[in-house]
């Protein structure tokens, strides 16, 4: 990767090489008639301590990417290297051990709590799975984490439904942090939230990141949030990364036409009106029937013949990586 690793001393925490995850498409008879290429050759490094944003519209494969890294889906092809170890092909108990250092936060961490368990038992569970700590030490650990996410110890004896949505969210995060993971994948953590709640959630993520020295892979469709939270941003379209750059650069000089349209589509309060200026026509094609060549060419305002013939690879232009022939 030509991205400047020198800026961060240690090697990357997570390395993806040509990672792919395809889902079979079956016809009415149950025969496979094709592949849905949800993630299709993604290479990416996540450096310790950073927050890497992964943005794209629904169906672009960003969540599938997160779940494949997490081991919820097995990769169809490519490599996942985490802390220097190949984890993409691990199975069973060996794979489950990786979860100690690599955690996944669902869109609503509150929904990840078993409604029949009390908070205390829920917070003890990860420690029971991954450590051999005696009960008393686990309890100390649990108390510490609970304070870190800003909840009183009295909540330990409650059931999830007795807490407010915001408190459930904090418990969900605490559950993951008891293990002190190195990398946390945040999957659409602010989707569906009101702005004021969103602000509280983001604030919490930031403070937890500094407290626990976390590295985030921040998956989101919200460009404004990504811009605020991430040092680097990768833009995905139909299973591929089309642009990867430092946040400031990406937002100031977007080089891929898709990134440009995406930025143009976001309403800017006080600025120009999207309803008057936005030009991108049509909708993304189905990932079941991928266009030849560049995947964006069917909607691209500047596409030329070459775009249909040849799929552009990521290349570096002034410190930004762009997959476009014309950039």
């Amino acid at each position: 990767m030509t991205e400047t690793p020198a800026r961060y001393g240690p090697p990357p925490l997570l390395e993806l090489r040509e990672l792919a995850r395809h889902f079979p498409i079956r016809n009415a008879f149950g025969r496979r008639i094709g592949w849905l290429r949800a993630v299709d050759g993604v290479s990416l490094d996540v450096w310790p301590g950073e927050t890497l944003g992964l943005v794209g519209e629904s169906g672009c494969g960003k969540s599938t990417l997160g779940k494949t890294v997490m081991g919820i889906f097995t990769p169809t092809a490519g490599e996942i290297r985490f802390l220097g170890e190949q984890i993409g092909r691990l199975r069973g108990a060996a794979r489950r051990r990786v979860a100690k250092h690599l955690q996944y936060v669902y869109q609503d961490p509150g929904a990840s709590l078993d409604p029949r368990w009390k908070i205390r038992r829920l917070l003890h569970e990860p420690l029971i799975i991954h450590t051999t700590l005696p009960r008393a030490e686990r309890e100390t650990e649990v108390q510490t984490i609970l304070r870190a996410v800003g909840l009183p110890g009295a909540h330990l004896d409650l059931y999830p439904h007795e807490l407010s949505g915001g408190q459930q969210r904090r418990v969900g995060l605490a559950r993951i942090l008891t293990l002190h993971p190195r990398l946390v994948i945040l999957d659409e953590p602010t989707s569906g939230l009101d702005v004021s709640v969103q602000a509280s959630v983001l604030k919490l993520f930031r403070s937890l990141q500094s407290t626990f020295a976390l590295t985030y892979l921040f998956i989101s469709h919200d460009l404004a949030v990504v811009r605020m939270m991430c040092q680097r941003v990768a833009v995905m379209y139909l299973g591929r990364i089309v642009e990867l750059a430092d946040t400031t650069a990406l937002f100031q000089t977007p080089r891929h036409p898709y990134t440009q349209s995406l930025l143009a589509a976001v309403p800017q309060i006080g600025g120009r009106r999207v309803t008057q200026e936005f030009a991108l026509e049509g909708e993304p094609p189905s990932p079941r029937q991928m266009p030849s060549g560049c995947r964006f060419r069917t909607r691209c305002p500047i596409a030329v013949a070459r775009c249909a013939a040849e799929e552009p690879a990521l290349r570096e232009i002034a410190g930004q990586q762009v997959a476009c022939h014309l950039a």
Partner: protein
Amino acid sequence: MRILALLLRRLAWFIPTLLGLLAITFVISRVIPGDPVALIAGDTATPAQVEALRRQLGLDRPLPVQFVTYVTQLVRGDMGTSLYTTRPIADDLASRLPATIELTLAAMAFSILIGIPLGVVSALWRNSVLDHVLRVITVSGLAIASFWLGIMLQLLFAMRLGWTPLNGRLQGFPPTTVTGLYLVDSVLAWDWTAFSMALTHLALPAATLAFPALATLVRFTRAGVLDVMQSNSVLYEHAMGLPRSVIVWKYILRNALTSTVTQIGLLFGILLAGAVVTETVFDWPGIGTYAVNSIIRSDYNGVMGFTVWAGAIFMIVNVLVDIAQGFIDPRARPS
């Protein structure tokens, strides 16, 4: 196209399921103690005679061989001979099938035509007096033993009031056989005496059989309608001011029916099972009474034959239900 694919998929499972069913019944009827040969041969037979008979019936060969023999014969339409009537089982069953079909179809039609509208009304006027009355009736319908209900109906309508005959399918000669269903045949023959006679004979057993099915349909339709009434699409239709009767009887009903129709398939199994008992109570000359008689006489060929037929009919009905489902729900995808 979708419906065709669905049909083929279901049919692909048809044969293995039927084979599995055969295997289960076969094992049950042969492995488990109880010697039919000794039963046929009679008390006076010597062991040598019994053995000879056993060889003659092919029951001395290993079980898998017997099974293969049975299946190959079955494929040729040969279900063996009844040990009791000494006629081919297939013939026995075929001659009795129309009676059972007439009974179950009548019960089915009755429960669908009454049950679905009642279910809708019950949901629309939920917690009204009507809803509560219907709830009591449906709960009873699922709790009542059909043989007892049949006997009670006989006691009241046949014995006390004399409105209907006690049992049987007809007195006198049946109308010219076309379909084997007396109601249909008598209409075709323009024979209204036979028609009314067939109808009065059919009334009690059909009502007995229909009651639990009716109860199930009311419950499912009610639940389905209530469910759909909460949906966003119905909220939208209300917001756009469509007339209430259109929303209910066109949009909600069709949505609710998708789950009700699946129930109809399962229900047919209940009806078929109920037919065994109900036919016994009403001496209805269908395959149910035949099965019970075969059981009593240890006629395993008869029992096997009935089980295979019942299973096959049940599966065919469920394929038909899938097709109906395909028409009601155009999205229906096989899974």
